[in-house]
């Protein structure tokens, strides 16, 4: 590790984008702009933009609350209100935040929703979550049912089913709340901008195939996916951000530089890992440090695909806007079945020349955690690479035991070293 953390231009740009968005949201009661709440996976951002709607993502508020060390307070608040310890901690952080004044990550108050758009159902908790918010805010919900890829494929009838729901339920609901008529040309325009941003994002993520990797595809990756998973997909600003980011990353790659971490440049790449599962947000920096101080770089992660799986070829398509939104919703990582997830992990290990797979199993999220051990075993069998398993939580600080996590990570990395060392093969 050497050098000081440098704020790259793209980081400044991203910060501005997000701040402007929260500011715009806080002014919504004055400007009269309508607000919808929706989820990251399967989000219909381009469609919302076509109705001048401002989206809020409760999951992002929850994770940002955790990074600002507020989630414990919010979770306690929700538990006092009767939400049990075992309930998803994203939900409780959101409910707690709402009950304590709904001040968002930027420090400004968030407006209440005019409509809740439940556009992804691969997570069953999402349904219960919006059921709770509907009660809290006394506002309507529109639901777009996303069929799970149980058989590992998207069939034409699944696409038709989703497009039909969009035409008969989602679009009319958006028209009603915004007072604006559906204009498919506006949607197509946004789709073209999405496609450009997605192609640049894929180039950024795939830069990690290079040795040394110029990026960390997990801890750094969550910043890179920020705008595209957030309110900005399909905007000119997001397209520009990804162009800028790609330029910076390609420059780093050309110079043979490693990733930038909060503690400076990672100069000595020793381990290349694939990580499955979301990160812990309450101790995000500490968690990252456990990797980078050992020279471990995450070259590919599945978490960075929850809001869209683009590196297998999918792009939003302006020629078929609603159909491609349907494909997008059904293609998100947690909507893939277990064999698909294993195939993806195997592909990552191969394409990114990884040393192994580390699973971070979070207590809160069954959409992720169910089946992870099975995936790990199958991965080990197929690739012969070592697997590791750690347990934390998303935003509940009570489930992050730093000493235990560090111990597992160190043990895992030493296990990789031991398997590599030729002298280690000698009889003990």
């Amino acid at each position: 590790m050497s050098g000081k953390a440098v704020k790259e231009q793209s980081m400044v740009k991203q910060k501005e984008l997000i701040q402007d968005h929260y500011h715009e949201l806080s002014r919504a009661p004055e400007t009269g702009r309508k607000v919808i709440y929706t989820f990251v996976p399967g989000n219909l951002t381009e469609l919302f933009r076509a109705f001048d709607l401002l989206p809020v993502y409760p999951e992002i508020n929850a994770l940002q609350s955790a990074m600002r060390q507020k989630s414990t307070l919010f979770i306690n608040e929700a538990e006092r209100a009767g939400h049990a310890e075992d309930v998803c901690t994203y939900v409780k952080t959101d409910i707690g935040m709402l009950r304590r004044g709904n001040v968002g990550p930027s420090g400004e108050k968030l407006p209440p929703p005019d409509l809740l758009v439940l556009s992804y159902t691969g997570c069953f908790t999402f349904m219960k979550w919006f059921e709770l918010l509907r009660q809290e805010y006394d506002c309507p919900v529109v639901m777009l049912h996303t069929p799970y890829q149980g058989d590992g494929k998207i069939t034409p009838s699944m696409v038709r089913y989703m497009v039909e729901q969009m035409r008969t339920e989602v679009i009319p609901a958006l028209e009603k709340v915004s007072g604006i008529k559906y204009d498919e040309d506006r949607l197509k325009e946004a789709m073209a901008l999405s496609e450009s941003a997605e192609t640049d994002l894929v180039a950024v993520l795939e830069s990690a195939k290079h040795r040394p990797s110029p990026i960390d595809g997990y801890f750094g990756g969550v910043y890179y996916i920020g705008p595209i998973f957030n309110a900005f997909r399909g905007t000119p600003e997001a397209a520009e951000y990804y162009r800028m980011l790609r330029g910076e990353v390609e420059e780093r790659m050309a110079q043979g530089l490693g990733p930038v971490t909060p503690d400076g440049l990672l100069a000595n790449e020793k381990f290349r890992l694939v990580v499955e599962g979301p990160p812990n947000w309450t101790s995000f920096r500490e968690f990252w440090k456990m990797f980078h101080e050992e020279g471990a770089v995450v070259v590919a992660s599945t978490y960075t695909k929850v809001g869209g799986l683009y590196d297998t070829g999918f792009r939003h398509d302006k020629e078929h806007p609603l159909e491609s939104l349907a494909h997008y919703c059904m293609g998100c990582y947690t909507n893939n079945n277990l064999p698909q997830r294993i195939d993806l992990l195997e592909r990552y290990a191969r394409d990114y020349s990884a040393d192994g797979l580390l699973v971070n199993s979070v207590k809160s999220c069954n959409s992720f955690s169910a089946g992870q051990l099975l995936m790990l075993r199958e991965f080990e069998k197929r690739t012969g690479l070592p697997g590791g398993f750690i347990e934390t939580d998303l935003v509940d600080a009570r489930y992050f035991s730093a000493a235990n996590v560090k111990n597992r990570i160190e043990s895992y990395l030493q296990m990789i070293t031991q398997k590599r060392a030729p002298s280690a093969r000698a009889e003990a």
Partner: protein
Amino acid sequence: MKAFVGIDLGSTTTKAVFLDESGQVLGRGITNSRSSYDLAAKIARDEARVSARFALLERSLKADEGLAAEAERLRSELIAHFHRHQQLVQLGRLREIAFVEAHAPRVAAIAEPLRERLAVILDAMEAEEKRPRLGILAKQTSEFFRDRAASAFSRLAEERADSTVKFGDLMGIFDKAILQVENTSFELKFDDSLREAAAELVPAMGAEQGQRLIRVVETSLDIDLDEVRTIGTGYGRQRLPFAKEDIRSEILCHGLGAHAQFPGTRTVLDIGGQDTKAIQVDENGIVTSFQMNDRCAAGCGRYLGYIADEMSLGVHELGPIAQQSTRHVHIASTCTVFAGAELRDRLTAGQRREDILAGLHRAVILRAVALLARSGGVEEQFTFTGGVANNPAAVDALQELVHENYGARTLNISPGSIYTGALGAALFALRAGEERWEAA
């Protein structure tokens, strides 16, 4: 002679192992882990070094034509003399501190009679120490001074206590003093102690034999025991005063240690004080997969420790009692504290102590079996390590559950299983040393 050292700093005990260049165990040491990890590591290392010294002495004795036949007996007697000397030094230190404590303002009202009784008790302890007692030789090294002193002191204090100086007053002084004795490392002066021990044996031997013994002792003392490399592991490994490259995870050390003890090992289960590890290793002892208990210690040694406290029993007594069980009792394994409540509840309901204890052992092992499943199952052969491996009821439950889930498996338990992690660390020290020489 080159020595390679492994130190395993556990949550309950700290272990050290010395290996020679061929990977043979030269010496082992164990002590209570305490607030000062550095000190625990130093004491375990000193003890292992002494036991390595005695191993070298035995080699020298066996190499001497005249003494070879009696080598083992002589070694045992020398160790006995040496340890007696060592205990007396510690007892002297205990006396010193106890008298300082007896001057504290807290006990000013009874100072005079308190000091009087302390002197009587400590004299008696010293007299007991000086009495020859060859019979318990083998046990001595694994026995802590604290435990021996505590049992002697409390027995004598009970005899001496009265309405003026109460039992609690005497034990209060002892508790303060023993803590300080434990937390100071004293110079062992090995060479002098061994010479003294040899001198005590000589009169009973023939003149020629006596001369030989003195010569052999000197020869063995001339061997330079050079600790070329030390590797640390265990719960407190970050606190060991070692460089990062000299530290290995306990997972790797247990895997390698178990492989060295039983080369056929493919699955290792280690149940220690506060963590349980399920480890899969390949034919070279290289770890291929592992799982540890994360958010809860209900499947660990502490669970049994807690139960022993609840029942006012020693933890070593639990297993033999549980083995008397005749009826199957199911106990939930989710929480240590709840298990205590369940235990009291069942005792009140009239269930038999041995049946409940057997159920509790099974509960601990059920957690371990779940962890084994997560790590990839139980392969042939299966090695069980850690403090809980010494508990016969835990072993019975494990054998039964492994058989139910995986069929017939060879279950290995080494008598030195508590040293498995330190042994693995020492093997890493040996390898690291070799690599450095190759690179040079």
